[in-house]
């Protein structure tokens, strides 16, 4: 279906576009000594028929795409030139037929004679109009393609975000999982009650992390719950090497943020902080509200002998990207080492579910 025929408004605008061409044609005829009746009687039906006849160029243009280069124009130039001459001639012929049909109306007896004289001019004009409609068709097709590309781009971006989230969900650290299962294996013999507790904790953590990935945005409360479930398991693994400190302002809990932002931070704190230190240390999670913003912070000690981390690891880079992707310049991401403590700070506007 031709896009101009698909909507009444578009068709109206298109036909309106033909009005000045009709006036022009009538004007030319008048300047050649035709009277107003003759000029109008011919120009109006002729232009109306051309308007519909030349719609066909759109289908041809679609079949002969330009391929986005100027060379494309040259490749099809020959075909278009021939089609234009053919259609111009056809159009002039139509004018002549029309003139013959109108000749019986009183006052239009001279029309066939006049059209006969003007046939070369009419043919030329037909060629020009045809080429103009080819150009218009290509323009419309190009615009259509642009819109399509934009829509596809937006779709691809959405898919990419979703797959990224899926990947995050699937990114259940295998090292964590196997070490936890090993702890569980040890506990079954020495402390069955705690083994059962660990089973429950592990299930709780898995269920939460699987459920969270389904959503784009999540309340900070749920992110904190996930981190608590995770750290409760690590507490069993690391025993008294891991000391946890939670400082959470209840006002921060309903704040919405991209899913799974806190989890990579606490996993990092365990991997590069607690697990790398024979004596372990304090892992502190802080969430406070200040001037309409949530400040979310994870602190962990670092091995003083190891070199300071060079730049951000892939996990932290993703956190930053997703935070800034959601909040833009209204959010801030900081990672710094000071006095043997690694600190990651996220600051973002306090927005809650309406």
């Amino acid at each position, binding site marked *: 279906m031709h896009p101009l025929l698909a909507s009444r408004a578009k068709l109206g605008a298109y036909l309106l576009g033909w009005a000045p061409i009709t006036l022009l044609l009538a004007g030319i005829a008048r300047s050649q000594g035709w009277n107003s009746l003759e000029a109008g009687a011919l120009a109006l039906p002729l232009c109306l028929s051309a308007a519909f006849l030349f719609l066909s160029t759109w289908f041809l243009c679609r079949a002969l795409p330009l391929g986005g280069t100027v060379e494309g124009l040259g490749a099809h130039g020959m075909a278009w030139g021939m089609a234009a001459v053919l259609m111009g001639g056809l159009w002039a012929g139509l004018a002549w037929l029309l003139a013959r049909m109108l000749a019986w109306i009183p006052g239009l007896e001279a029309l066939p004679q006049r059209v006969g004289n003007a046939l070369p001019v009419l043919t030329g004009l037909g060629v020009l109009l045809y080429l103009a409609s080819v150009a218009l068709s290509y323009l419309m097709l190009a615009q259509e393609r642009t819109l399509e590309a934009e829509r596809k781009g937006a779709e691809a971006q959405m898919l990419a975000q979703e797959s990224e989230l899926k990947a995050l969900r699937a990114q259940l650290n295998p090292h964590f999982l196997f*070490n936890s299962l090993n702890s569980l294996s040890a506990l079954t013999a020495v402390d069955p009650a705690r083994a059962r507790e660990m089973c429950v904790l592990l299930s709780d953590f898995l269920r939460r992390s699987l459920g969270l990935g389904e959503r784009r945005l999540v309340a900070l409360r749920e992110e904190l719950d996930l981190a608590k479930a995770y750290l409760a398991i690590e507490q*069993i693994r690391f025993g008294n090497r891991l000391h946890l400190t939670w400082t959470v302002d209840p006002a921060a809990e309903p704040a919405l943020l991209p899913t799974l932002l806190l989890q990579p931070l606490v996993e990092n704190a365990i991997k590069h902080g607690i697990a790398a230190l024979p004596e372990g240390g304090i892992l502190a999670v802080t969430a406070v509200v200040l001037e309409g913003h949530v400040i979310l912070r994870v602190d962990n000690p670092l091995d003083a002998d190891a070199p300071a981390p060079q730049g951000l690891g892939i996990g932290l880079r993703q956190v930053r990207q997703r935070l800034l992707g959601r909040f833009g310049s209204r959010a801030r991401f900081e990672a710094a080492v000071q006095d043997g403590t690694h600190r990651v700070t996220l600051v973002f506007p306090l927005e809650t579910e309406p």
Partner: protein
Amino acid sequence: MKALIIDDEDLARAVVREHLAAHPDVEVVAECANGLEALKAAAQQQPDLIFLDIQMPKLDGFEVLELLEAEGKRPAVVFVTAYDQHALRAFEAHAVDYLLKPFSKERFDAALAKARALHAAQPAVPAPSASDLAASARQGRPLERIVVKDGPKVTVVHLDRLDWVQAQDDYVLLRTEGKNLLKQQTLASLESQLDPSRFIRIHRSYLLNLDRLVRVEQDSKEHREAILRDGARLPVSRAGYQRLRELWEGA
């Protein structure tokens, strides 16, 4: 048979201990929560067998093994780890056994039997060196730090703190933070483990951390010297200069 259990997690050591209880001829002489403790315990107890975790604070399992080797100790080793199993598959070729956490009693007993057999027989093929094992577990990734036993003290040299390395017969002299450390290893073997875009063999006897290089000066036609950030000068051979130029032109 005297055994050592080395793992930074209490519960992980408990599983090994529990499985060993079924083998009364194996005596657990010590349990260690990190590599440094392990070295101390190994020096005191002379174990025949060690159960060794890979990811541990300060020193990893490979580094512990390497330092034990440096002291001439070759206990039978069973790696016990949640480490990437693909990385460890290469160990099978080296006749070294490993247990992936968590493991079954049967799997544990099989690993123990294998270690016992290796310990009893004088192995026809010499056991692979710890650094070879570590290299195969790294799967082609370059080394990130070097461990050196300096008398009773163990030093971990992170590569961004290593200025240059000099060959001294069967030893290498490591220059780091104004100190010299000696380690028993050949320059060629160390060079093969390092990132070739970071450490360049500028001379038959010298490997240089490219980050330390300021410029190369030409004294005479055939004599060039590398000037380092701290003002030190190292000789650059013709082949070494060629390698530097290739690197510069490539970049």
